[in-house]
């Protein structure tokens, strides 16, 4: 299986898919088929990579731009999990997109599928990056490739959303991330990801706190406040984009980078020794709570979910900032469990919009009886995000809470509790309204006209909802796979 070693395939497969999408511009069926095919191939390829011996490094240097600065890929459990997650959900989202885009008669679908494929290629680059330099490159291309998706509708609303999106993401990455990168390069003399970190003995005290903070603020995709505004702004995009990119690929690329930098650049022990994460920890706790409160006040479902995502991303940042192996592992698991939960919720939001054109929670009264599958799936997804058993979200939350207790951060522990309550308060009423409140007059008037969204939408959302339950029972392999990353 020599070809498996060519890790750049993970980037080439989606790009090739994109080229086919362009080639079949005028033949929608073939265009959609090539998009799905690329997704399936990519997923299969990543699953094959799981079979490779993880003890070997499998370093693949693509090109050396300048001495010491190279574009290189390697295999490492954290990255593989992220790659597997993004590619797997890409397939499901593509099926969903077909239903959604046709159901809403969106224009410029070729451009949509093309940039979608390019975004996934960038996400794969981030997942497999063997050094910070490569990670940074694909981090930036991901921002740029998603911009045309965010502004897909080309309205003035999309334009202003796009401005915030690009301004915050490019701005923070150039201002903070790039600076942190150069400082690391000069201090450590290397940018490679090494287990245990590369900064040991090179940096200490306040300088390490500053550098860690610079990195975390620079990764705008992790949506730490005050650099979170891009995520709600990105909600002007068509829902499949919000679902895959702004619940999975883009935001998870952000927190994935957070974990990767914590583990492979700083090293968990180094962070703990130097107390490097002290500012970031409190910033993340504040973000988690404030975003939850804002979510409560949002009536637009997608906006509410966006703020919920901001809050949930901070869970993962806290996991890294606690500098405790179990907590960081909890953060890594939360990448996966939250992805399944949140993508389900976004799929539901899109399905409701496609079927009824309703976007606000207050319009959902009584819709549950017309769209039972959608709202049932919503309920499962919501329960998983809240973190109740028997749903996947409960495991990651468990580990995070355990981590905060072990490190005796009782305030963080309390904040987790409070956040969970807030989660219940803003996620559950959506489903409760739909099932238990009497239909509003216009919904009643529409009568039998309202029914479930097209099957291409419905099947993916049921699949991911089922995923949240399955993951609860089969989390062990994932746990074992990730365990060595945090306990070298």
């Amino acid at each position: 299986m020599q070809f498996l070693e060519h890790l750049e395939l993970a980037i080439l497969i989606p790009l090739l898919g994109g080229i086919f999408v362009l080639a079949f511009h005028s033949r929608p069926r073939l265009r959609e088929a090539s998009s799905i095919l690329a997704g399936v191939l990519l997923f299969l390829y990543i699953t094959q990579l799981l079979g490779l011996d993880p003890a070997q490094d499998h370093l693949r240097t693509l090109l050396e731009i300048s001495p010491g600065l190279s574009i290189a890929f390697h295999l490492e459990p954290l990255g593989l999990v992220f790659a597997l997650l993004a590619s797997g959900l890409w397939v499901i989202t593509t099926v969903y997109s077909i239903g959604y885009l046709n159901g809403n008669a969106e224009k410029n679908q070729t451009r949509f599928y093309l940039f979608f494929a390019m975004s996934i290629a960038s996400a794969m680059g981030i997942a497999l990056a063997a050094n910070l330099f490569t990670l940074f490159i694909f981090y930036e291309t991901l921002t740029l490739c998603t911009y045309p998706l965010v502004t897909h509708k080309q309205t003035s609303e999309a334009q202003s959303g796009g401005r915030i999106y690009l301004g915050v993401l490019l701005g923070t990455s150039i201002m903070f991330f790039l600076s942190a990168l150069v400082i690391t390069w000069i201090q450590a003399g290397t940018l490679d990801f090494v287990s245990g970190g590369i900064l040991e003995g090179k940096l200490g005290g306040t300088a390490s706190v500053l550098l860690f903070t610079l990195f975390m603020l620079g990764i705008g995709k992790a949506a730490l406040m005050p650099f979170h505004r891009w995520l709600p702004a990105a909600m002007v995009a068509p829902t499949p984009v919000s679902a895959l990119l702004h619940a999975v690929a883009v935001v998870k690329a952000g927190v994935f980078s957070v974990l990767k930098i914590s583990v492979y650049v700083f090293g968990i022990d180094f962070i703990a020794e130097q107390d490097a994460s002290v500012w970031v920890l409190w910033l993340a706790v504040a973000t988690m709570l404030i975003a939850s409160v804002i979510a409560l006040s949002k009536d637009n479902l997608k906006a509410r979910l966006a703020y919920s995502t901001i809050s949930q991303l901070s869970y993962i940042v806290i996991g890294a900032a606690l500098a405790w192996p179990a907590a960081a592992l909890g953060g890594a698991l939360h990448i996966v469990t939250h992805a399944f939960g949140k993508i389900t919720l976004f799929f539901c939001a899109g399905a409701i919009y496609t079927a009824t054109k309703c976007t606000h929670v207050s319009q959902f009264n009584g819709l549950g009886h017309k769209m039972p599958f959608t709202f049932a799936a919503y309920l499962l997804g919501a329960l998983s995000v809240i973190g109740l058993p028997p749903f996947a979200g409960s495991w990651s939350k468990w580990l995070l809470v355990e981590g905060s207790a072990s490190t005796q951060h009782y305030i963080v522990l309390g904040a987790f509790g409070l956040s969970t309550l807030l989660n219940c308060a803003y996620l559950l009423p959506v489903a409760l309204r739909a099932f238990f409140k009497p239909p509003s007059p216009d919904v009643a008037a529409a009568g039998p006209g309202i029914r479930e969204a097209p099957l291409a939408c419905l099947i993916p959302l049921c699949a991911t909802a089922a995923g949240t339950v399955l993951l609860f029972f089969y989390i062990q392999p994932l746990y074992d796979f990730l365990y060595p990353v945090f306990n070298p």
Partner: protein
Amino acid sequence: MLDHLPALQVIIPLISAPVCMLVTRASWAWLLATAVSIASFVMALLLAREVSVHGVLSYHLGGWVPPLGIEYRIDHLSAYVLIIVSATASITMLAARKSIEQEVSREKSGLFYSAYLLCLTGLLGIAATGDAFNIFVFLEISSLSSYALIAMGRDRRALTSAYQYLIMGTIGATFILIGVGLLYMLTGTLNILDLQQKIPGITGSRTLHAAFAFLTAGISLKLALFPLHLWLPNAYAYAPSMITVFLSATATKVSLYLLFRFFFGLFPPEVSFESFHLGRILLPLSIVAILTASFVAIFQDNIKRMLAYSSVAQIGYMTLGISLASKEGSIASMVYLLNHALIKGGLFLAMACIVFRINSVQLEDFAGLGRRMPWTMAAIVLLGLGLIGVPLTAGFISKWYVLSAAIEQGHWLGAVVVVGGSLLAILYIWKIIEQAYFRTPVKVALHTSAIREAPLAMLIPLWVLVAGNFYLGLNTSFSYNFASTAIHAIFP
């Protein structure tokens, strides 16, 4: 033949210039100018190879031995600049024919091409010669011809811009002449190598101080270093489109070369930076240049002017690199020089494409161009990303080196300004992109079907530059290694 290359590099364009004037047909004049440009590019490449293999080439003009005779001296630094100038000339000329036919009247086109060739002669000569007075002569050749070229712009304001440039440029050149004169008075020689050996012994001299000051001010004027940049935005905005392409990628770059040649070669770097504190002069000016010029660029509605202000800011990056007084900083500045010539030349070439079709570079007229001229606009987006400094582009490499040089010196303010300037660049580049992709044209005239993609003869050179933008972003073996050898040779 190969032995005479240093002289031929300059003489061939010089002789072709009057020939061009005699040619009656515009297309023949264009053909000659293009052939000469490409020939000079080939010669520059041959020279670069010779220098890499055999080291510095010294050519004695007329067989007179320096320091008495005039010496042409090609080292890595000269070869690097020769390549940039002649490559830009070739790309510009290949793309120029239709645009020039449209913008310059037929009877003037012979004169136009001969002025262009003289300008090329001057720029190549500055880089090739090893004689301080000779540099002044070539500087005047290139400047005078560029005043004439700018004045040929269609807009009547081209005349006042050319006049403005003439006044400022002449002051600059005069200052350089005074500086060189004072040096001659002190040392009795004009040969740069000879001067370099004599200057460290006389650093206490007031005359030397005066010479240094005159040279600094004169070069800064030519370089358009803030606050001496006032001639540049108008000159770039109203010159014929193709001349803007050519000058933006060469004129200020050659002036930057002069900065290196005078203050790292003629004056040894330790004299320039330790005795005369060049860094302390350049640094604040660079920082102000980056910030104010980028800021002003955001508010321009004429895109050529916007890009011109952006050039002033980018010059600030290059002088910032020099002002750090370190090897890494100077190399960064050299790499920046090449990458910026490529990116800005490309952007102005895209403007030439747009002028060719819609006869305007006003921001409001860009509405809907994303659909009508997709290839030109895509090139603008990609080159714009280079200007911002997004990874994988050449612009990222140059910003990376400047940033790491600044941080290495512990110069935090400089580092913040470098990244801050990039953020401002996002703002002005995105103004163009939003206008082209989100707006529909308002003017009735712009709805006509006449607006379509630029001709292939212009698109191909444009996309060559786009490809170069990515090539240099992925492979720094030419830009970095060549610049590094050049700097190591002059910065002991």
